């Protein structure tokens, strides 16, 4: 390269950096060109929960495709839209030509975050600060407070408190996720008890941090990449080949991180590990006979559409295997609970509208308990049930299982 040419290129790079212009990568080019497949049939509109909840200012998945097909470079115009999407993935599943709307939304968020940070919803910036400060997306309770809360919670559901077994070389790593570490504390304990009951040799990684999903959802893909790279490197250093996760979001995000980074580590949600390694017969044998209860399953988007529908069938088989659990199907089981995409943290109103729709479907199923294989969905649904006075029990799957499997 001549020095003239090099100078020219350096100048261009400098201007781009000053103007905060990020050139499209080949991957981005490819994803954006997928938008052109959209035939404007509008079928996706019927399946989009945000469109149903708002109509007014959310033009739905077709609108996203529409908006961008005018001029992809003016992506920031779509900022008010892309932060509303819950990334539930229903549009893509139902789209006859498979337009990858959720992927497009993620790309746009990351571009907006870099080039137009002023357009990132304020409610989300706080979460990002939490991750930088504490390593978790939520501010943790102080240790005494946490212990007290945890004891109370465990006592109520009749489960014991154990220490965290440290991760030793070669063991299965249990990744609890921020929600179970800082909010729905019993999920982490239940996860431990279930793994122990089925003789899984596991440990909890020391100083683990957020899986990166919420960070990526906010748009900070650099930070998300960094969190994931360092977690997976640490696991490799510890000779870990298997990671098990109780949160649907963490599971799907860490799974795709292994793919992105070419890591050979196998990440699985608890239902996958149980179904594939333990088997429903063993689960059934081990489970205590408890009172008869009518149960339905909420299907987290991150399991059913991000990881794959098979995880839902695993979860269903596991529930069906438990004695005295009367499993009932639910119309709309695959619909988002409203917490997806971090919508809840910057637009609680729309999020709650979606949740109320979900609650109607839960009520209609006739179940006494709705089980969700995800602490984030569980918290969201049970908050909604309390607020709307819907008399249905809400349990995270790990907790529901632990209570039927744990014995002194």
């Amino acid at each position: 390269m001549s020095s003239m040419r090099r100078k020219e290129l350096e100048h261009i790079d400098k201007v781009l950096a000053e103007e905060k212009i990020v050139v499209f990568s080949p991957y981005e080019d490819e994803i954006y060109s997928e938008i052109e497949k959209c035939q404007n049939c509008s079928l996706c509109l019927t399946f989009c929960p945000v469109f149903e909840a708002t109509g007014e200012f959310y033009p739905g998945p077709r609108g996203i495709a529409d908006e961008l097909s005018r001029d992809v470079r003016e992506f920031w115009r779509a900022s008010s839209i892309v932060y509303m999407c819950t990334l539930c993935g229903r549009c893509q599943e139902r789209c006859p030509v498979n337009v990858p709307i959720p992927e497009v939304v993620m790309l746009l968020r990351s571009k907006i975050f870099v080039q137009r940070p002023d357009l990132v919803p304020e409610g989300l910036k706080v979460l990002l600060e939490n991750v930088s400060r504490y390593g978790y997306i939520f501010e943790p309770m102080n240790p005494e407070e946490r212990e007290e809360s945890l004891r109370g919670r465990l006592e109520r559901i009749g489960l014991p408190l154990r220490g965290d077994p440290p991760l030793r070389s070669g063991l299965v790593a249990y990744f609890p996720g921020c929600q179970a570490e800082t909010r729905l504390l019993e999920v982490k304990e239940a996860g431990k008890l279930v793994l122990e009951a089925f003789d899984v040799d596991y440990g909890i990684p020391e100083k683990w941090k957020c899986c990166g999903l919420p960070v990526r959802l906010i748009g900070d893909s650099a930070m998300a990449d960094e969190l994931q790279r360092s977690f997976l490197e640490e696991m490799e250093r510890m000779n870990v080949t298997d990671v098990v996760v109780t949160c649907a979001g963490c599971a799907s995000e860490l799974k795709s991180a292994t793919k992105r980074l070419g890591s050979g580590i196998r990440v699985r949600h608890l239902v996958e590990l149980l179904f594939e390694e333990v088997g429903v017969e063993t689960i059934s044998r081990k489970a205590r006979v408890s009172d008869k209860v009518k149960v339905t399953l909420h299907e987290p988007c991150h399991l059913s559409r991000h990881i794959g529908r098979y995880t839902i069938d695993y979860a269903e088989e596991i529930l069906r295997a438990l004695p005295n659990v009367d499993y009932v199907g639910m119309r709309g089981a695959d619909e988002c609970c409203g917490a997806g995409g971090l919508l809840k943290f910057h637009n609680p109103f729309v999020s709650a509208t979606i949740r109320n729709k979900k609650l109607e479907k839960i009520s209609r199923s006739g179940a006494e308990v709705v089980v969700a294989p995800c602490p984030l969905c569980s918290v969201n649904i049970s908050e909604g049930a309390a607020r709307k006075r819907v008399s249905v029990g809400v349990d995270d799957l790990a907790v529901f299982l632990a209570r039927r499997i744990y014995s002194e």
Partner: protein
Amino acid sequence: MIETEILVIGGGVAGLLAATKATDEKLEVTVIDKGSGASYQSSGVIDVMGCPLGEATLKPIEGIAQVIECSPSHPYSVISSERNVTNVIKDAIRYLTSMASNRGVEFKGEIERNVVLLNTIGSFKLTCFYQSTMDRGVLHKLEGASLLVTGFKGLVGFNARFCSSSFKHFASKFNIELRKTSSTELSLPSLREFNLTIIELARMMDEDDFRKDLAKKLETEIAVNDVSHVALPTLGLKKPYENMRIFEEETGTSVFELVSPPPSVPAQRLMEALEEEAIERGVRIFRGYKAVGFEGEGRSIKSVTLASGEKRFPAKAKAYILATGKFIGGGIVEERDKVKETVFNLPLYDEKGEPLKRQNISRLLAKSPFPREGHPLMGCGVKVNAQMKPVVNDEVAYDNLFAAGSIISGYNYVREKSGMGVAAVTGYIAGMNAATHVEGG
């Protein structure tokens, strides 16, 4: 992981009907679907035979007879070698409409005659069975009517003024005299006045307050316009009949819903009803699984390979029904210069029943995209015998494989207006025969 007696691949009209029919025999039936296909994009009315050999007819039975005489590879002709095809179409459609009716979606119409319905793009649609929300607008019932076409400010894809003049023109072509046509464009406080979609409008209609406001508005419009009939682009998603009744009572006119291209609200109502009724009758439906291959042994299918995320696993059944649709459903895909059937890699045949040769395809594709006789690729698909078993060189391909719906070759529904009719009757027969196959061991 899935083990069932009958596995149906594809949950469009053909697949849902086949699956439900098979459960009548108390068999365990599972439907898998990757997402959605043509049935969701249809207008939610059932065509049986609108344009046999390219000419429109108001008499479907005569049309079917013509087709049987001239197109031996048409599914209706193939069926007629074993059954009275008119009777079995009647049975199949009665079955379909009673499934819908059990979930509150009512159909009208009779196989003896086609009707002309007006649509939201200012044109008309020839069909046979239609939802009863459209009944008052059947063209031959509009003789002497004074029709008010009701638009909504900001509603995308619907121009009431254009429709009203266009309807008058089309009516006269069918020798129907509309005494008067007029139009209005309403704006209601709760409606956004730009970029409004018909789906939102339909959802609004189901809200009591909106419905009340709208009824009032209509009443004022009607007072000035001397109207006997009111056409609306939609009557609502969940409560169309209730809405229709209320508008009729409030305005003293006959109210109906226009047919619409995608996104069609009546099609959503129909598909939701069929799916719910299928589940109610014991069919298991899994959405989110894509069939990507199979294991066979001689003339028997052992399992179908399903893909879900990164996983591949077999689904085992005693009989399989292929109801994956055509290009929209995804049963046939086009890859550069080749079209192929996606699950069993069955050879494809053209509308005349000839094997679709590779060199033919480039010739077919090179033709104009809208030839008068219809796009030739729309007639291609798998070839079946009268039991709906796919055949290759006149030999049954697999003893336990059946096909239904638009994956079948030998007819072009776009040109012919026979889409759901063929989907229903082939689904009905495939469901019955798959059940017999399983019961016979």
